[in-house]
């Protein structure tokens, strides 16, 4: 990191960019040849000017000095955008490469996949809320709260987020700097890439105990008391339970949370029950 920070003080570090819009290959070649000549005559200092060409529209040359202070916010934003674009162009991509979103990443998927996911997302968003409401109204007693873990079934957005992490890790792992002798220095090692991914999401890998960040309280029960209690107390079913308890309709009971889960890989259904640290009287 220090090398990178101090690197821009080197005489051959780029501090100006010549942006050619609409240049054809010949014109770009001429510009590069002129740059080579300047480097030959003036030495390393001439390397400070880089040339970028964009093959569209009419020829338009724009000289940008990276060290000059931008005059407006727009100019600053345009400059940041241009650097992103230039770097992405270097990788053979457009600017959306750096901003993976559900929409940009669709480019990698087949039409069937996209339509299937769309359909699943739409249908699940309709089906589960309806079923949840019907069960709460007609099946589950009014003192018990029923809730699907996540009404939206499709983990499409989550997968796209993970895809973004994978793309960044891959790019970092494949990127290197080459010195004059041709020796390559890679930005990150394989172990570092793995650590980066494991930190991003548990699906990529597990952190060791030393790598896991430890919580400050070291007391999960305290945490549960402070976080969950207001959440439980606000549930309509729990409110009617405590109301009924106040009026003497129902006895004081331990509050429990019971979960049903399905493992898609093994096809096993599991039920887990945990007692909450309060009784109905504590919430009333």
């Amino acid at each position, binding site marked *: 990191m220090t090398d990178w920070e101090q690197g821009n003080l080197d005489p051959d570090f780029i501090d100006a960019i010549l942006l050619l819009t609409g240049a054809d290959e010949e014109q770009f070649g001429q510009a590069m040849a002129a740059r080579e000549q300047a480097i030959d005559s003036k030495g390393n200092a001439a390397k400070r000017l880089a040339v970028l060409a964009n093959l569209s529209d009419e020829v338009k040359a724009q000289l940008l000095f990276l060290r000059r202070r931008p005059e407006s916010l727009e100019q600053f934003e345009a400059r940041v955008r241009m650097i992103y674009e230039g770097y992405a162009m270097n990788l053979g991509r457009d600017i959306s490469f750096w901003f993976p979103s559900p929409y940009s990443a669709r480019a990698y998927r087949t039409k069937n996949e996209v339509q*299937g996911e769309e*359909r*699943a997302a739409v*249908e*699940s968003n309709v*089906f*589960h809320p*309806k*079923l*949840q*409401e*019907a*069960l709460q*109204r*007609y*099946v*589950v*007693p009014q*003192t*018990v*709260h*029923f*809730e*699907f*873990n*996540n009404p939206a*079934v*499709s983990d499409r957005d989550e997968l796209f987020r993970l895809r973004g992490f994978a793309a960044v890790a891959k790019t970092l792992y494949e990127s290197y700097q080459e010195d004059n002798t041709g020796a390559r220095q890679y930005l990150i090692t394989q172990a570092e890439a793995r650590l980066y991914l494991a930190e991003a999401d548990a699906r990529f890998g597990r952190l060791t105990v030393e790598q896991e960040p430890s919580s400050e309280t070291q007391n999960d029960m305290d945490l549960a008391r402070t976080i969950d209690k207001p959440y*439980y107390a606000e*549930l309509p*079913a*729990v409110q009617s*339970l405590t109301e009924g308890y106040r009026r003497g309709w*129902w006895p004081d*009971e*331990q*509050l*429990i*949370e*019971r*979960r*049903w*889960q*399905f493992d*898609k890989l093994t096809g096993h*259904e599991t*039920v887990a*029950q945990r*007692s*909450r640290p309060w009784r*109905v009287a504590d919430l009333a």
Partner: protein
Amino acid sequence: MGELMGSKQSRLQADAKTAWGGFINLGHRLAQGPNEAGDGQGFDKWLNEMLFCDPVLPGMIAKLTSALAGQGWKLVGGRNTARLTSHVLENADGGRGWFHFSEAVARSYLCRDMGGFVELARLYPPQVDADGDLITPLAPVTALYNMDSTKARWVRDKLNPLRYEGLPSGSMAFSTWWIGQATPTPIGGAGIVRCTGATSIQSC
């Protein structure tokens, strides 16, 4: 030079119509349409037959329904009540389980005009007066069963607006309070119920 060799793949052979026959038939039959336009149940039956003519659609539906059914849930409440309720949900469809139950409801919801139906078994039957209004509070639900909506039919009867025709001994009428219609579609049975004025039906 020998004569041109034919491909061993059936889709490229002369009798390709056999391999893709179902798909071609699907086009023909879809163009023909159902027999009776106003019959929701007949339309469902026709659609159900159509569905399995398609080479891709049943697989997609299976994938989607299992995704819908595999969604986890949680119950929060007092220990005894929550345990009993959880037991009802976990043993839905006569002990086949929640996954089986919700998969069937989801398939019914996705594929049928009538929507999905759920039969609610209660501790004791609801007490109603001559007009079909409740006299006593409803008993707690003790079991859940998915109903085949192609065999359920709306009838002009305020007390028992739904008739189930899948029984070997003939049809059986259900009281309104025994049936929860999970998800009617606008052109499905819900409209019929609204016309007959049976507003007490449990639907959402």
